[in-house]
Structure formats: structure tokens, C-alpha cells
């Protein structure tokens, strides 16, 4: 092995372990959330991302700090991968005022100005126009940025999907539409919702460059997202990536999962994105037991700290109930 190749291999190993670490952070964070939900410490709707971690981690790895993200109500993973502080994210899950949205949003409405994370939108399809507008602002100011708009296959049936793709293509706006096709809009399988299920094909019909990507393979996701983001950043107009993925858990904590077979879930679990990356690393001799244990220990410590932070957090005084409705309070 030449020196250059060795350096590259070292770099790749560090990067790959970083991807693994990010996916594990999301997995453990959400497993903890499910536990806290059962204990009554997290309430409201809780939509777990478990199984889909490769999409958020690979996509966020392709971005710079200047880029923006508009996500959905299943956004814990994107927030963590983007760099939203786990402590503040967990405090948000609790509804504490130390939360990233001061506790006002909860699980479905994660916002973070520091990382340009614009929610947390719980109306399916509702985030797409906002992403188009953020990109419009960048285009009008000649800023070389990308706005990543995350949404699911359910959103593809919404009018706002079609309107937003049309407008972004018409105005050549720097949006990366990231469709997480997990096959189910809540309980409705994609074939029961879309007359044609080829999401990338719909984008192409609008003149948008689009590709379908294995959403369980974090390396493939990152590569596709990097290529797309680079083309978008250099003025190539919007792109769409359709990530084939699957959620291992129920839609929310209230879902009895009557609409899909356990066998199907088990089949997809064999392609668990974390296990796939571990296998690849192990086969390449890049991950030994000690390295893996170190990652686990780090992640476990971070999640424990986050829970501690949220537990120690405080409830916003009721006297502040009506703050932040208006920036300029009514006269």
C-alpha cells in the first residue's frame, strides 16, 4: 500500500466510523425516547425513525454549515445528524424550556437557528414550499447554498409536492428534495396511494434530475447526496433523491401495525443500515471490537447526559404562556 493510499484508507475509516457513530446516536436516542414515552415522560405524538438512519446521516454528511434543512415530524435523526445538541433535543422531547424550541414544539417541531434547521413540519407536504422559499432567498442573493427538503412517500400524493417541484424547476432553485420512501404513508402502502409509484420518475416529469438510491446503505446515500448537492450548489437547479428505506417501528406510539406483515418487517431488518455498515467495516478490517465498544460507550454516555439534562430542565413559567406568538407584541 502506498503512503497516499494508506492515508486515504485511514481517512475513510475515520469517516465511516463517524457515519456509524451518527447512526448509533440516532438509534440509541430513539430507543431511549420510546422507553421514556412508556414511562410517561415524553407525551404527544412520537414518530420513531429507527431503520431509516442511513438517510439522515448520509444526507447531512453532504452538507455545509451554510446549507439549510426543512424536515418532517419524523425528524429526530436529521436533527442529531445535523448537529442539533442532543441535550437540547431531549429537553425538547420533555417539553422543557431548555429544549431547542423552548419546549413549545416537542418531538414534531424541532427548530435550531444555529444549524439552519427549519423544523419539524407536521403537515405532510407542508415543508416543501418553505424549502422552495429558502432556496429562492439564496438564489436572489447569489448564495451558493443548498436547502435540503426531507419528506416521505406520503407527501408525494399532496398537491404541495407537485406545486413545489414545478416551481423549483421553473425557477432553477437550489433545493435537494430528499424523499424517504418507506413504503407507507402512515398505514397506507404506496401502491394504495399512488397511481404510479416511481417517485423519481415524477420528478423527471418536471425536468428535475432524479435518482433512486438504496436508503439502507449510508455510503450510497452520502455519495448520492454529495453529488446532488455539488451540482445544485453550482447552479444546476433542483434535484430529487428517492431513498428506498423502511421504518422498523410503528408509525407512532399509537400504531398497532395492522396494515403490514411482521415477515416484511423482519425482511427489512436484515438490511438494517447499522448492521450493513458494521459488516462492511468488519470485512475491510476497519472495525474491531475495541473500536466498536468505544463508539458504544461514547454514544451511551451522550444519551445518558441528554436524559440527565432534560430531567434537570425546568418548566417554562405559565406567566410566559403567550410569549413568542408575535415578535412585536400587540400594542
Amino acid at each position, binding site marked *: 500500500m502506498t503512503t497516499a493510499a494508506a492515508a486515504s484508507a485511514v481517512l475513510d475509516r475515520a469517516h465511516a466510523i463517524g457515519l456509524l457513530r451518527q447512526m448509533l446516536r440516532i438509534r440509541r436516542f430513539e430507543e431511549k425516547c420510546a422507553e421514556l414515552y412508556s414511562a410517561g415522560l415524553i407525551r404527544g405524538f412520537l414518530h420513531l425513525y429507527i431503520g431509516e438512519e442511513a438517510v439522515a446521516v448520509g444526507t447531512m454528511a453532504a452538507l455545509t454549515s451554510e446549507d439549510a434543512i426543512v424536515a418532517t415530524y419524523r425528524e429526530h435523526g436529521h436533527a442529531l445528524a445535523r448537529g442539533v445538541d442532543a441535550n437540547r433535543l431531549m429537553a425538547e422531547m420533555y417539553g422543557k424550556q431548555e429544549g431547542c424550541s423552548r419546549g413549545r*414544539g416537542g418531538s414534531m417541531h424541532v427548530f435550531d437557528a444555529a444549524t439552519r434547521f427549519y423544523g419539524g413540519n407536521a403537515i405532510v407536504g407542508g415543508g416543501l414550499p*418553505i424549502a422552495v*422559499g429558502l*432556496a429562492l432567498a439564496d438564489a*436572489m442573493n447569489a448564495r451558493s447554498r443548498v436547502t435540503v427538503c426531507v419528506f416521505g412517500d406520503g407527501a408525494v400524493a399532496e398537491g404541495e409536492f407537485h406545486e413545489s417541484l414545478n416551481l423549483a424547476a*421553473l425557477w432553477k432553485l437550489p433545493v435537494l428534495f430528499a424523499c424517504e420512501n418507506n413504503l407507507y404513508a402512515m398505514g397506507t402502502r404506496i401502491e394504495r396511494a399512488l397511481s404510479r409509484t416511481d417517485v423519481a420518475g415524477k420528478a423527471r416529469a418536471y425536468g428535475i434530475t432524479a435518482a433512486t438510491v438504496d436508503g439502507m446503505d449510508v455510503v450510497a446515500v452520502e455519495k448520492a447526496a454529495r453529488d446532488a448537492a455539488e451540482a445544485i450548489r453550482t447552479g444546476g437547479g433542483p434535484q430529487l433523491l428517492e431513498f428506498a428505506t423502511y421504518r422498523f417501528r410503528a408509525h407512532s406510539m399509537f400504531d398497532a401495525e395492522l396494515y403490514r406483515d411482521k415477515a416484511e418487517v423482519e425482511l427489512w431488518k436484515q438490511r438494517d443500515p447499522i448492521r450493513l455498515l458494521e459488516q462492511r467495516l468488519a470485512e475491510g478490517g476497519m472495525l474491531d471490537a475495541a473500536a466498536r465498544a468505544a463508539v458504544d460507550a461514547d454514544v451511551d454516555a451522550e444519551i445518558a447526559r441528554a436524559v440527565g439534562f432534560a430531567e434537570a430542565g425546568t418548566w417554562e413559567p405559565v406567566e410566559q404562556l403567550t410569549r413568542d406568538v408575535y*415578535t412585536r407584541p400587540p*400594542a
Partner: protein
Amino acid sequence: METTAQGVQHMTYREAVRQALREALHREPRAFLMGEDVGKYGGSYAVSKGLLAEFGPDRIRDTPLSESTFVGAGIGAALGGMRPIVEVMTVNFCLLALDQIVNNAATIRHMSGGQFSIPLVIRMATGAGRQLAAQHAHSLEGWLAHIPGIRIVTPATVADARGMLWTALEDPDPVLIFEPQTLYNMEGDLPDHAGAVDIDHAVVRRTGNHVTIITYGATLHKAIEAAGTLAREGIDTEVVDLRTLRPLDMTTVVASARKTRRVVIADEGWRSGSLSAEIAARLSAELFYDLEAPISRVCTAEVPIPYPKHLEDAALPQPATIAAAARTLIH
């Protein structure tokens, strides 16, 4: 537009809005106008005629017919640092964008714990009187005034049409401006140095001691006509123009009602579940022992706006019905 007396310009309401737009685009480099047919066509009510030639297609943006997405793009562009002015052709069409107005524009500041404000102006034509039937002529501003997080303003005069836009544009929160479509051809005088108009206060348009008519928008002019009729009968009528429907300036309203002790609310909205009901309830709570008579309301008949002129006229508050309501309180 022509200059008449020294330092006074005579112009239509339409011209006043156009001047306000021109001023905004000159003074605020982040401002731009977008909507259906605002550019090449010149605006469906000819308000933005000439602006495309003056400011170019980057700042005067014709949009596809996709209300939800161009309103949402306005929200996104505001988040991205711009000061968008979005024109929705007519009030009924804003229903296609209610998701963006109600679920995003009104909530993002709150849901984000105060991290993100939405400095967005949405303009639209409202109201009946031009035989446009039941999908182009409703008065839904009072309905939107139900929503915390947005401001609702209704300029009824040339001076307010000229002066409110700049104030709205400088506001850090979303402001919806409702322009009564029957007023676009109305003429009025504007002092050369007429400045911005605040969007926090109602104003007394005519002073009187016997009865107060509370109104806004196109109905203001009917109320003033009614007041003229009543004056000839010896009834001294005060007319309050609400101007801003959210937040309501109850200080001005209560002061007038306390003085005259008799109140007519003339509102082009429907009576049931309405802004007029809200004002009546607040006045009753505040002035229960001061009022000489029950609060009277003159509203649009509970019918979708009909096409034939005689039926449309019959559906709407008119000077005669407003005057009749006032007389009943006196006698």
C-alpha cells in the same frame, strides 16, 4: 394621479397601493413582489401595472397558479432573509394557501421558541359588490382574524392604502392586507408628505355623540353615507374604522361606545361566528351597565354571495340598513 391643491395628490386607491409597492421596492432591497399575473399582466386588478418594467423579473415574479406553494415560498424566503410581498389574486383563492398561512406563517415563531420570525406581507382583494358571485367575493378577513400569530389589516382609504404597506413590510411578523375590490377605483386626496400609517390603531372617521358605527373596509364608506343620512334626521353618528382586525384596538372602540352608549357593528362578514360577534361580546363585557340599548349588528346575509345585482345588494350591509339599525337604537 394628478397634483391638485398645493402639496396634495389626487389619486385612486389602486394608484395608492401601486405607489406603496414602488416605494417599498425602492427603499427595501430585500423586498420583492410575487403572485399570479403580477408582472406581465400587470396584476388582475391592475395594481402592479408597470412594476415589471421598472423593477425587472427578479423582483416582480409571476408565479404559477399554485397558491399554497407561492405563499409557502414567501414564508421560506422570509426565513431566508428576504421581505416578500405576496399577492393572492382574490380572497377566496387564499383558501388554497390556508395550510401555509395558518399552519406555518402563524405558528413558526411560536413552535421554534422564538428563534424564527416571518416578516411576510400577503395582499389580497376582498369583498363583494362587483357581481363576481360566490367564489370571488367573500369577506373572509374576519375569519382569518381568528388566528393568533398573524396581523390582519384592512385599509379603507387612499391614505391607508398608501401608508400601511410600508408599516406592514417593516413588521417582523406576517401581515395580511385585505384590499376591498370595490375601492380600487375610489379617488381621494393624499398629502405629498403623507407617511407610513401605523397598523395598531382604529381611527374615528367621523365624530358624533348619539350612536357609534363600528366598521372597516368597503363598509366604512357605507357607514359614512348612513351617518350623513342620520345627521339630517338629527342623529349625531360617530364612525369608527377598525383598520386592523387582529389585534383589535379595543381601546378606541370602547372609548367611542362609552361616549355614545349605542353601538351598531357593520361588517361585510357573515354574522355567525364572526368578528362582529367578537366585538359585541367584548363591548358587552366592558360596558354592560353603560349601554342604552343592545348592540346591533348589520352583516352580510347568511348566503354565498349571489350573482344578480339586486340579490348581491340585498345580501350586503347597505347605507339604508346601517342607518335603520342606528335609528332603532335611538328610538
